[in-house]
């Protein structure tokens, strides 16, 4: 029994600027598929981060805003407050969301802003050339941790999903991955559920996605997948951390 497969309509025809094997592309496609399936392309506003996905707007067909580094959740708040009828999502990297943008994501989540965040955790600052991120693994070498992340000096990697789940306001918080088709299927389900909560005006929703950056990890795309599975998944456990029904 075969299957057909086509580019989702919410996705533009542009060739992405991402490096070969970079999983940003997979995540883009999942978002577009979900938006198509929910039929909300005409009332969606995406927010591009500052990071490798800074040009994300080139790859979708709906309205987009471009945030400053880390501030996408504040922009999304601004939109949703004045236009609750729009569907809004932020697309953010780990440097963007977990470093400079920590205050904004925590407060948006805590206020229960009714937007969705797609959080791409690739354990590094991709765009600027591979500096250490708050999510960089212990011992991982980056351009600003050339001897490997020293947890005695700069602490442990931040588990964003767990951290946000520790807030009291109801929310949908989940971590998935796009390292293999089996994960990709689950990631898509999580994204869809996240958007659905938004459409139901229920709660803030965030999907953390374990991702790769072959270029800055200094490995090829296939090795990157292996590294992420072996090193990241045991620390960043996949699964739902919170649902609004929990509380």
């Amino acid at each position: 029994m075969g299957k057909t497969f086509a580019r989702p309509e919410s996705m533009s025809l542009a060739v992405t600027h991402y490096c070969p094997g970079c999983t940003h592309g997979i995540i883009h496609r999942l978002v577009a598929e979900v938006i198509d399936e929910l039929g909300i392309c005409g009332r969606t506003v995406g927010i591009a981060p500052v990071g490798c996905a800074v040009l994300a707007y080139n790859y979708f067909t709906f309205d987009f805003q471009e945030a400053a580094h880390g501030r996408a959740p504040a922009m999304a708040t601004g939109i949703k407050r004045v236009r609750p009828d729009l569907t809004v999502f932020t697309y953010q990297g780990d440097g963007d969301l977990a470093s400079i943008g920590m205050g904004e994501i925590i407060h948006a989540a805590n206020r229960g802003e009714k937007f969705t965040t797609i959080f791409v955790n690739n354990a590094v600052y991709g765009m600027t050339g591979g500096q250490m991120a708050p999510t960089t693994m212990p011992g991982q070498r980056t351009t600003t941790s050339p001897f490997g992340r020293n947890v005695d000096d700069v602490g442990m990697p931040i588990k964003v999903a767990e951290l946000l789940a520790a807030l009291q306001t109801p929310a949908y918080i989940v971590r998935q991955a796009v390292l293999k088709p089996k994960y990709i299927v689950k990631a898509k389900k999580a994204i869809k559920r996240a958007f659905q909560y938004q459409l139901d005006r229920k709660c803030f929703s965030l999907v953390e996605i374990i991702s790769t950056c072959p270029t800055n990890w200094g490995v090829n795309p296939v090795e990157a997948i292996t590294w992420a599975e072996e090193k990241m998944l045991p620390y960043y456990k996949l699964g739902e951390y919170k649902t609004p029904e929990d509380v």
Partner: protein
Amino acid sequence: MSKVLMKGNEAIGEAAIRSGCLNYFAYPITPQSEVAEYLARRMPEVGGVFLQGESEVAVSYMIFGAAAAGARVFTTSSSPGISLMSEGISYMAGAQCPAVFVNIMRGGPGLGGILPSQADYFQATKSLGHGDFRLLVMAPASVQEAVEMMMDAFPLAEKYRNPVMILGDGLIGQMMEPVEFPDSKKTEPLNNDAWATSGLDTRKSDTRNLVKSLFLDPEALNNNNLLLKSKYEQMKREEVRFEAYNTDSAYNVLIVSYGTMSRVCRTAIDSMKADGIEVGMIRPQTLFPFPEDQIRAAADVTHCSVVASIEMSMGQMIEDIERSVQGKKPVKWFGKCGGDVPTPEEVVA
């Protein structure tokens, strides 16, 4: 409409509502927190949006997001808070988003003090953030003028798709004076289908809209900057506002002063006139665009021998006056910058 006695901060909040702006995001800071406190009650009454953001940085991006989605929106803050908004304001100017920022200035630098000051003149007029851009800056000298400038600010922001700043000192916010809200200044937001990210479904155009300030191609960035520059040139041609006082006399001294400080100067001018000394004054109502030509002309008359910049700062506007006067007359500075407003007596001295 009859007059009501209102605190400047409350009048500013009410003026926004009366001019059709029902969206407000802000973070508390003395001496302007009463705007938020007033709107926390008022916005629910008029079905508007009131949200206290977690910081001024966040607020600037809430404003950006809301404006980019096509809403009329404004915020208020004071000096340190405005510094924190500088990245966001630069982004909005680059992405051509209209909004109104009110700065009720307090003493600086740093934490400084909370008393009135005019020490953010440079920041407001030259560089509220990185890159080539300007704000249209209006400086009210009374609560009534604050109201009128607020009501004008929204259509101006939309005309230029550029942030507009109302620059007042602490007294403008704290003082109570009688005010009227002219119905004639109520306006409808301009149609923004062509650029706002309002969702494809809810507007006529069928091309998607993109609000951004990134132009990786140097040619494109240069073009964006030229476009911005042309807007600022247009402001210089069309938006200069000022008031002249006692300039029909044969003044020996020309004062340039704005905001609350200019009222002190007016009292001083009156009292000197009583003593037989004639002093003229140009009061810029827009600080950008600056009334350069008017000041040059007023300085250039023969009976004028000196121009005085009177500011509650250590000398900022004086640089614009020097540029305007072009060496035709000496330009002197008088000011104070601790929160005490110089008294007419000090100005005279």
